[in-house]
């Protein structure tokens, strides 16, 4: 119901809206908005009781105008003493340099809980094992790093280092066909 009513009233409100708007904005002097009824009533009352106040209000007061001309503003710098910070019991930090760049992008711990390794140790473990799996039994590696044997087995089984291949010239491209990679052959250059 409300929807129908509002759609009707909207139509009435917007009837010929463009023409009315153009007429309004092409006026030389805009007509002021109507006063709020209580305000209008109050002004009417003042006009009736003492109209001279309103007239005086509309006229330029020369005396006040002259006084305003004599007003000047000057400014002076005030020396501000720096506030002394109350000295605490602990010294303030002196080193304000940015933290140094680390090898792995995060600081390495100095203490290690049992069963944990740092990324540096992990990389060494993986690359050592990969270069020669038979050099050290997995149980020895696990004991060396305080790791479980199963955990060490999984780490060396599932994580490998990449083989780096740098083409000699830019035109040498990869030297390995995509089909060879797909068939699982070792990715390397045959020179």
């Amino acid at each position, binding site marked *: 119901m409300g929807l129908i009513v509002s759609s009707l009233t909207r139509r009435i409100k917007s009837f010929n809206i463009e023409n009315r708007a153009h007429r309004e904005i092409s006026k030389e002097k805009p007509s002021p908005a109507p006063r709020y009824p209580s305000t209008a009533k109050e002004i009417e009352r003042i006009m009736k009781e003492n109209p001279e106040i309103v007239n005086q209000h509309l006229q330029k007061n020369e005396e006040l105008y002259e006084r305003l001309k004599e007003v000047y503003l000057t400014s002076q710098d005030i020396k501000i003493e720096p506030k002394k910070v109350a000295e605490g019991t602990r010294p303030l930090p002196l080193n304000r340099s940015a933290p140094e*760049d680390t*090898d*792995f*992008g*995060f*600081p*390495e*711990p100095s203490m*290690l*809980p049992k*069963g*944990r*390794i*740092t*990324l540096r140790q*992990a*990389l060494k473990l*993986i690359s050592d094992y990969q270069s020669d799996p038979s050099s050290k039994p997995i149980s020895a590696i696990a004991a060396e790093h305080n*790791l479980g044997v199963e*955990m060490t087995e*999984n*780490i060396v*089984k*599932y*994580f*490998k*280092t*990449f083989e*780096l291949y740098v083409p000699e010239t830019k035109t040498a491209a990869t030297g390995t066909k*995509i089909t060879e*990679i797909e068939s699982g052959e070792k*990715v390397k250059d045959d020179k």
Partner: protein
Amino acid sequence: MLAVGFRLCGRSLMKTFGNKPWNFAKGGSYQAARQHSLDSEGKTSMTIMNAEPNAPLMVDSYSQYGFRLNNGLAVIGPMIIFPKTILSWNLSGPEDISEESLALFFALEPKLDILVLGMGVRGFKINPKVVTALRHHGTNVEVLTTDAACATFNFLNAEKRSVAGALFPPQFIAVTDDDLALSQIQRKDILKIEDI
């Protein structure tokens, strides 16, 4: 279909302000910032995170065979990426993810803030057993498709968080003309006509 070109990462994050389309030779994740300028309207500046000096390792682009990193190296196969290190992940696909194949992340000290898993397939459901194991070890994990995972990893790495990405190359990429053109620009053979 073969992957013809490397798809740039985080291209959905690329935003243009003003009316000039941006032209990039290199991919990566972009952070665009509007600078209010009084001189002229629409003046903008842009930082490419991957190309910043001393930026950590980030993924520039991906293809069905691997990834291209911001240090210029191309990586073939699934990879584990740390802020400044990469490792190969000896798995054949996302179905091989298990508690055992995530062992390294559980053994690392300091603990990772977050592990970003990039599945090569859209909508791949990770094994509930693995989720339980991750929860047991207190590892925060974000399972995403590879494209989203690359961008997420880049952003987290730019914020210098202790983050690791375990990414599979996507199994399928819908290659667009735009991708082909970009990869040709990268290979500098834009005028070469391929035999049909």
